[in-house]
């Protein structure tokens, strides 16, 4: 079997053209997941009544559902119920006006929240309780202790697992092709529909994902080094 470089190049171009969609599918869930995940992690660590337990249960439930299954469910609900919901809220929009990418973003965001919560909770567990107590003992409030003492220590600990999560979301984003969203993978396969160069399409998509991941890894290494300068010893 011959692999045609021309087709790979064509697929790369086509895939990159839809890179902004992949970027949306990764960035929005990462960003929202980080914020909401951090809040949930703190709620759980401080054992805040009701919401702490509730969030635990929800995350346990949600983590057990494969992303493809969740995506299919949301997509079905979206197609079947969108018009009814819009009518209920007296919104004058039809399903055709809405970009289906929001279904993908929604599914990935929920996944991201679960991943981020667990990573940040792990980081918080790693920080000695004495750091909190020392903060309280000199008269800092809980918020001040978090902001000045805990979070600066949490960042370097959490970067490796958080990077791992983002890489997971990047890979997860390719699954949204299953509900008809055109992102990098679907884009790279477009030329194949004319020339049957599917292998080249998949290779091109792999290259794009790989580059994206490598860039992200380098960024995380840089942040990690910057964040933990307090751990460097004098030697």
């Amino acid at each position, binding site marked *: 079997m011959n692999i045609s470089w021309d087709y790979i190049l064509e697929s790369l171009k086509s895939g990159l053209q839809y890179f902004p969609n992949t970027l949306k599918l990764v960035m929005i869930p990462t960003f929202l997941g980080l914020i909401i995940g951090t809040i949930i992690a703190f709620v759980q660590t401080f054992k805040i009544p009701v919401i702490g337990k509730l969030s635990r249960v929800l995350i346990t439930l949600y983590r057990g559902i494969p992303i493809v299954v969740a995506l299919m469910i949301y997509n079905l609900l979206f197609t079947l119920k969108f018009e009814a919901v819009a009518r209920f809220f007296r919104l004058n929009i039809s399903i055709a006006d809405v970009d289906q990418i929001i279904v993908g973003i929604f599914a990935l965001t929920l996944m991201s929240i679960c991943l981020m919560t667990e990573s940040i909770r792990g980081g918080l567990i790693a920080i*000695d309780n*004495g*750091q909190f*107590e*020392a*903060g*309280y*003992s*000199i*008269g*800092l*409030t809980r918020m*001040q202790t978090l902001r*000045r*003492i805990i979070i*600066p*220590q949490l960042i370097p600990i959490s970067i490796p697992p958080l990077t791992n999560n983002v890489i997971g979301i990047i890979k997860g984003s390719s699954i949204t092709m299953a509900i008809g969203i055109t992102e990098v993978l679907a884009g790279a396969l477009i030329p194949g529909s004319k020339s049957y160069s599917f292998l080249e399409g998949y290779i091109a998509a792999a290259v794009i994902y790989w580059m994206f991941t490598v860039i992200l890894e380098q960024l995380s290494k840089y942040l990690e080094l910057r964040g933990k300068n*307090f*751990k*460097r*010893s*004098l030697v």
Partner: protein
Amino acid sequence: MIELKHAKKSFHKTEVLKDVSIRIETGEVMVLLGSSGSGKTTLLRCVNFLEKADGGTLTIGEQNVDMKRASKKEIMDVRRKTAFVFQNYNLFQNKTALGNVMEGLVTARKTPKKEAQKLAEETLAWVGLSDKMDNYPAQLSGGQQQRVGIARAAVLNPEVILLDEPTSALDPELVGEILAVIKEIAQKGITMIVATHEIAFAQDVASKVVFMDGGVIVEEGAPKDIFRHPKEERTRQFLARILPSEDMYYI
């Protein structure tokens, strides 16, 4: 003046403090003695609300606090009047020695940064760490870290400093430097409650010795009374085990 009345604390079903009352006048140094598990640490932690007592009242100066029902504001007020030195130092890992000492002044007391830095530098110089101000805790020895810990507490000029076995985590060679610093604080007239196993230090610095066992105060009094003429049998047992006996030196 600090007074603790009828302090009680249980962890699950274990009663750690069973109705403990102590009173300490301004400028006094109270030494808490007792074996592990006698409640010394819990007593100190309750004063600073690192543990919430199950009952009892705390008086610091003018302020009266119900230890069980203290509001957030009352707790903050008490914490601003007290400072704590931890057994395992608990320095802020992400801050330099100077940053550790400045933190309470700048963030909790809202002291202007310049003034805070000056005060912090003076305090660090006083504990002998002028040349280590920009080092992170990970770059300091145990003794140096504990000196920063003491500076962090002392710089706030609190009404009382609570020291929880400040030398237990240090090797014997470094104990001396810490005790010397604590002694200096005592000479400045700052009120202190020290939980310790250092008997020689207690004899030297304490104005009052409290012996605890099983969550109650067994005996309290001036160091010379407690060490020379203990009244209670339990105190005698404890002291016999940790006081170097006279004839030991001849061995």
